[in-house]
């Protein structure tokens, strides 16, 4: 990596850290003075979750990077199985992730 791209990465990561901290810091400043269920906050929360829903779907269906070399069917199948185990098995996170990832590894290895 050359020097300018290293500096760019440092700035980018610092920006991401500051951008995240602003919410935390504002929370400390305003705690007890604002209601966390006001419409503006609700809207921000909806925006945040919609974005994350979009990011998850994109990472599974149109990934960037190494997952591009795996078939779409494997990713979708393993994802659906993992989420299915989550909702079918009492909403436990670790078994769901384990089964989903194991399915994916088996598909990639043997199919």
């Amino acid at each position, binding site marked *: 990596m050359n020097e300018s791209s290293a500096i760019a990465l440092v700035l980018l990561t610092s920006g991401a850290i500051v951008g995240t901290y602003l919410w935390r810091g504002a929370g400390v400043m305003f705690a007890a003075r604002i209601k966390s269920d006001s419409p503006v906050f609700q809207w921000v929360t909806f925006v945040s979750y919609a974005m994350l829903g979009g990011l998850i779907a994109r990472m599974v269906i149109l990934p960037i990077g190494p997952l591009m070399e795996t078939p779409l069917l494997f990713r979708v199948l393993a*994802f659906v199985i993992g989420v299915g185990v989550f909702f079918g098995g009492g909403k436990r996170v670790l078994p769901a992730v384990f089964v989903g990832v194991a399915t994916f*590894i088996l598909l990639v290895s043997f199919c």
Partner: protein
Amino acid sequence: MIASASAVNRLAWRDAIGFPSITLLASMTGFGSLVHESDLPLAMAIAATVGVWGLPGQLALVEMHVAGLSAFFVILGVALANARFLPMVVAFMPLMNEARPKSRWDFALVQMLSINSWAAGLKRFPEIEKTLRRRYYIVFAVICMSAGTLGTVIGYFGVGLMPRPIALGLIFMNPLFFAVLLAGVQSRPSMIALVVGAPLGIMFHLVAPDLDLLLTGVVGGTAAFLLNNRLKGRQSAS
């Protein structure tokens, strides 16, 4: 009521060492391997884990950067992905600090808040003497953060040493972990927004790859917000 410092330490250890630490170790292993496979340095992986300390924002950082977005949009995306910290902190701080005045330390301590320490605090604080709640939070959160950092390093180095299918499995773990953690939040608003956002994310990625996540957030989030208000209105009317 738990009123001795050593009993609070023990409780925090016991609560943190099980599920929260294992979850963080595993999810951050996925994150570390993603950073490695994206040809980014270990320092960035650790800085993102400790500095952002929230998987959604960390994934947004790496994914949007690798997708080639400009720094401005990446940072905006990460910040929006982490917006939930504001209402979390607003709900958490008054409970933790019930017995003491606000202090400047709060601004440092809040950095360690994550969904794990938040949930554990809200659950345990009523059982803990008011002056000892901060101690519980610090012990719990330090253990979580150590597990997360360890996971990041393990994932970063581990992914290169493993057979290819397992390495791919580690990367695949990211969206899956992320999905079940968010689905576990169990509130109707968040589920509506997640489900509305998913197809929009694909659509906007195809038509406007630079702005896909922000458009998904604003369009999908607003639609989900309005939809939820209508559902709420209908419920209270009936």
